[in-house]
């Protein structure tokens, strides 16, 4: 079976879906790997490196995904659908709810499309959990970016030229990215407070030396059965805004990561709060993918609002291309390997992980929310 690794479509996208390490593993499983020339440049994987690992590097002009039984990508490019071989498979961050039309086309072409963000978060699938990998990268990078941006030190420093107080960092949303941000900010010497709707993360925050803002929400109110946060609304939401509002102006850095799966990210930082911040402060809004936790955030942009820098960049993982590609490639490889039987991809719908991550299969859209959204879209 042929696996294709195209170059990512996004201009700023430096990641690649499969690195040389991954190539080695999959070649070992019996696959033929085709890699588009220079696909790995952004991630510092050269063509020769790929070749040494056992892949065939395919020049720009030659067909690639057109001949592949399985196409791997990081971010999904809807334009690729037209080129895919009928009945082949596709794997990557498909963002199905954001690409409804393309999903329909995939189904129409009888393509088995796996969306990495849908891999269920069960213990066995941890090695395939690309969302966690990318969140880890983003959480780390968000703090490094903030430190590079802010005109202040993070650590406390007592010097002959006076004592520098430590930076105060507020982390909103202590999920995978938030926890990594806590750890990184603490490493750099900042005083870290973290805020979340799920009270169960208190212990986790403290296990990293952070301080948890306890505002007395119960687990039932905040958490769904899968451990994800529920949307908070009404009274609770305004209470939340009040708690955050009290803290934001006292902070030098705010890292916002609050997301609710399948919904717009909650607005947790208002314009008024930002106005209350000291000049030079920095907000990194990792929730920009979901519209942003700060109402001023412009996804994909860095803006200056009254001296406060609001970073809404979407390419944090891409900016760490070497390691984020490596992790993503590991995730993909583990996934493909788990489905491989005698050198071919064996799509076993009984398998919770396979079934959970499939969007289209056998000519149909099998991912319920996507199907519902598509149907609603058609009727409206």
């Amino acid at each position: 079976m042929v696996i294709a690794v195209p170059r990512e479509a996004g201009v700023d996208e430096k990641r690649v879906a499969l690195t040389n390490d991954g190539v080695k593993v999959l070649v070992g499983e019996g696959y033929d790997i085709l890699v588009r020339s220079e696909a790995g440049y952004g991630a510092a994987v050269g063509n020769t490196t790929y070749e040494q690992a056992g892949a065939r590097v395919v020049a720009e002009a030659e067909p690639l995904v057109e001949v592949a039984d399985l196409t791997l990508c990081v971010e999904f490019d809807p334009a690729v659908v037209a080129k895919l071989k009928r009945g082949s498979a596709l794997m990557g961050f498909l963002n199905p709810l954001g690409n409804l039309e393309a999903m329909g086309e995939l189904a129409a072409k009888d393509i088995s499309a796996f969306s990495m963000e849908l891999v269920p978060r069960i213990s066995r699938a941890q090695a395939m959990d690309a969302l966690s990998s990318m969140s880890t990268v983003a959480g780390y990078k968000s703090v490094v970016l903030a430190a590079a941006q802010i005109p202040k030190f993070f650590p406390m420093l007592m010097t002959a030229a006076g004592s520098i107080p430590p930076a105060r960092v507020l982390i909103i949303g202590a999920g995978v990215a938030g926890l990594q941000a806590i750890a990184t900010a603490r490493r750099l010497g900042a005083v870290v407070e973290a805020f979340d709707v799920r009270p169960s993360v208190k212990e986790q925050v403290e296990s990293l030396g952070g301080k948890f803002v306890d505002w007395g929400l119960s687990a039932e109110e905040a958490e769904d059965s899968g451990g994800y946060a529920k949307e908070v609304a009404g009274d609770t939401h305004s209470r939340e805004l009040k708690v955050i509002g009290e803290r934001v102006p006292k902070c030098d850095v705010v890292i916002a990561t609050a997301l609710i799966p399948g919904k717009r990210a909650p607005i947790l930082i208002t314009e008024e709060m930002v106005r209350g911040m000291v000049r030079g402060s920095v907000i990194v809004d990792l929730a920009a993918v979901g519209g942003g936790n700060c109402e001023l955030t412009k996804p994909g942009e860095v803006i200056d609002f009254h001296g406060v820098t609001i970073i809404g960049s979407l390419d944090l993982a891409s900016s760490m291309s070497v390691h984020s590609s490596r992790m993503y490639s590991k995730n993909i490889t583990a996934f493909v390997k788990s489905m491989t039987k005698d050198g071919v991809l064996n799509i076993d719908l009984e398998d919770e992980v396979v079934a959970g991550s499939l969007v289209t299969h056998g000519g149909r859209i099998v991912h319920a929310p996507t199907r519902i959204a598509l149907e609603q879209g058609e009727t409206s």
Partner: protein
Amino acid sequence: MIDAWRGAVYVGTAILFIVALKLMNSPKTARLGNLLAALGMTGAVGVTLDYELIEPVNLIAIIFACAVGAIVGFFMAKRVQMTAMPQMVALFNGLGGGAVALVALIEFMHGGANMGALITTALSTVVGAISFSGSMIAFAKLQELMPGKPVVFPGLKVLNLLLLGGMAALTVLVVGTEMMPAYLALLAVSTVVGIMFVLPIGGADMPVVISLLNSLTGVAAGLAGFILANTALLIGGGLVGASGLILTLQMCKAMNRSLENVVFGALSGKAGESGTSISSGTGGTVRSYSPEDAAIVFAGADSVAIVPGYGMAVAQAQHVVKELADRLQAMGVDVKYAIHPVAGRMPGHMNVLLAEADVPYDQLYDLEDINPQLPETDVALIIGANDVTNPAARYDKGSPIYGMPILDVDKAKTCMVCKRSMNPGYAGIDNELYGLPNTVMLFGDAKATITKLIQALNDL
């Protein structure tokens, strides 16, 4: 031999005994201690007799008896299997008690003693006989010559009271009348009391009883020392009597029981299982160690793998864990950290903490690298990790963690788990590891427990 000379040797023996017991406090010096005690004993035996004054018959008897005792004792002790050690101890102890009773018997036969000596003789007979028969029962139970379970029958209580009453009466009679039959009756009744004392005790309580009997034999030997006005006996016996009692109490404490409870528990029907053994949720018995016990395990280890988990993070124990590793390394132990990819609650959780504690990167091993090494590792020390060590992940398809690669800590020679309770971790499932025979638990908050462990290592 001049008496002063002999006295000096006896005092020397006594001192050697004391030093020996002191040396037994640490595993490093314990063997030397035992040797010293044996040396002291040899000295005492050597100087006891004025050989030139002994009748030839007696001399031959002595030589014969010594030879038989020594040779049989030596081979029994050498041949016995490691697992049969406890009953050996019981047996030897009983023989010691018997010897006391016999010595007392001869002394009684000699007659001509004053009141005080008579009382002492009667007492040492009673104690020696109880120790003898009790130990024999203990031996029989452990050797499975008879059922190991507590033997209780109705009327046992009444019988015991009667026996005790009889013993007291006979003692008075013996002292008052010096009659041989009374004496023999006393001997008999005491023997029965010893049997009745041990019969209702069983199972995990046996070591405590043996220790108690051991102490009794010491007391009996001390009493014999009074009769014979012999310092070596007095001091040696007294020493064993006292230290044996302390030891017994400590053993009870380690089991969270009182001595009364152990001894009379079965009688009054409220015997509990030993406190240290909890049956684990997945079957198997859980053994709990104190930090001091754990320290001894480490003292004998060449290689240790430290497996940190979320609990280490919660306890913020990373600094003391590093300190422990330093301590072990200073002892020449090879220390590695085994980091599971999903230990903790975020990717790299353990790395953050261990880096903070300045653990060198080259001591960190990931799952693939450490797993092949674990079977050769003496101790896997698991600190607040749970799911990542759960063997159910290997085979139990129903388990939520099925399919997750785990650290093969169960394959290490000893697997020591430090956590606060038997509570599950993130996945909410029991861990059968805790019930495995090579696993011991070190219950308590990770930071506090590891601190105590370091202290115990220092005290060793």
